């Protein structure tokens, strides 16, 4: 993993996308996340909103945008469930911030690095979710290591396929 200094990061291009791409990709992720579990049954080991948050936050290299995007997507996810609104929001806000912060330092055009980051941030998101639900709110939430690991693997596999496709939608000067 190549770590870059603050000066050299300017040499890298910030990924830009049309506004419509942002809207459609984020909406599509939410819709598919709500619909696909009905098709795949109990094998819903993926979190599409998280994958697109990590992608855009890494590409934009902007923690602020990553945090806002993560908060919005997390709140939408919470609103579609019966859970308290804010648990996923906090988890995804933090993940968006971390992805944007890491994007400044790391060569995020490397697919392997992006996939590994997706894997790690999936586990971070699950850990924050469980922490907020169980320890801050005292709600019945249990850490199932195998499920969280499978979800992280699922997200990494989806990222492996999805990121190159989304790269094609970039605005190139």
């Amino acid at each position, binding site marked *: 993993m190549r770590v870059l200094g603050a000066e050299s990061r300017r040499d890298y291009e910030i990924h830009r996308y049309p506004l419509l791409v942002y809207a459609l990709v984020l*909406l599509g992720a*939410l*819709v*598919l*996340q*709500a*619909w*696909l*579990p*009905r098709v795949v*049954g*109990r094998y*819903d080991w993926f979190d599409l909103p998280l994958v697109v948050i990590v992608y855009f936050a890494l590409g934009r290299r902007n*923690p*602020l945008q990553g*945090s*806002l995007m993560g*908060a919005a997507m997390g*709140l*939408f*996810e919470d*609103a*579609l*469930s*019966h*859970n*308290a*609104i*804010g*648990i*996923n*929001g*906090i988890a995804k*806000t*933090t993940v968006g*911030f971390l992805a*944007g*912060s890491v994007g400044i330092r790391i060569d995020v055009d490397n697919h392997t690095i992006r996939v590994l980051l997706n894997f790690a941030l999936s586990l971070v998101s699950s850990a924050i*979710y469980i922490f*907020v*639900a169980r320890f*801050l*709110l*005292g*709600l*019945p*939430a*249990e850490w*199932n290591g195998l*499920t969280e690991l499978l979800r992280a693997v699922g997200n990494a596999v989806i990222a492996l396929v999805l990121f190159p496709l989304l790269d094609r939608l970039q605005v190139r000067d």
Partner: protein
Amino acid sequence: MESLFVRYRNLVVLLALLTVQLFGLALQVRRTPGGTSMLDSSDPSGVRLIRLWANALISPPERLVHSSKIGISATWSNYIDLVHVRQQNKDLESAVDRLRLEQAALLEDARQGERLQAILGFQQKYIYSTIAAQVYGSSGSDRSRDFFIDKGRRDGLKPDMAVITAAGIVGKVRDVFPHTAQVLAVNDTTSGAGVILETTRIRGVLRGDASGQLEVVGVTADQRIQPGEHVLTAGGDLIFPRGLPVGVVKRVVRDPDRDGLVDIILTPAAPLDGLDEVLVITSTEPRFPPQDEQDLAASKADEGAVPPAIKDQMKASEIMAEKLPGLTDPNLPPDKQPLNDNSNPNPAPPPPQPLHPDEFSPTANDDSGTTPEPESSPKQKPQMTPQRNP
């Protein structure tokens, strides 16, 4: 100050976002008297608004995706796949394959028809009023076991209505939107329903665990609870009617938190992971078949009329009353009738008279009777005069 904000802008925004969300969470969770936390069952108005917006934004494309799935799969199997088959097989094999595809489609249609017929038959036989609904989406997270159906407030749905299938209970309506509704499945950790074991009649509370398994929690350990026993709704929770199938006992495990209690793991009666059509119980008022309704109406109409058999019995009782002595005397005026005589036929006997009355005897003061004498009238006391010896 400004430069400090600009320098740490990202961190400040992150902290602001986290603080606002934590504050919002604090408003939604409340402490129970037992010291545990739980989500407020009724959303605050702001939270309800957010859920409404999210549903309004996500639900239409989700329903579109769901409904177009059938069209896409039909296009794939009837056009694209056939072209592929024709390219590979120019003779009899292509025809056989096409017939197989059609057979599969017909079989699927037949299965769906059977399923719908079964659910329709169940709906007609079921004593409560129900509405059939189709499941089209989920919450998208295995941490919350809920799903969306394509019927809402416009169809008469309300929160806390029971959702069932012909096989067993499924959940309850949690949130109702104009055209859709969110259903909380019984295998969610926050779900709860009163259940009873069919043969042992042991009662318990049904809920789901973190992995989505159905379990009856907090049951006193009992050797009679054996795998294979059927579990039914108890009807005490005011949501699920009594006697609906819930599941079958799979195994009994010790409660990790409380000694002497066990948790009963169930195999659900309804296929909770693969629901397509469900029924929502909209009214628990008994709904009888047309023949029974006619019988009820006829019996209500005849409520005032006296049947012939009862008339005969009444006539016989009147004849008997004439022959037996009664409390009415036709020769006496109404105010002298024995029925109106309030005098006591068996008066209490007078108290016995003492043989040697003294000043303490009840009869000694009979002159005063029961009424006390006035103070002004002095009592006559025996005068005691001293005797002088001459």
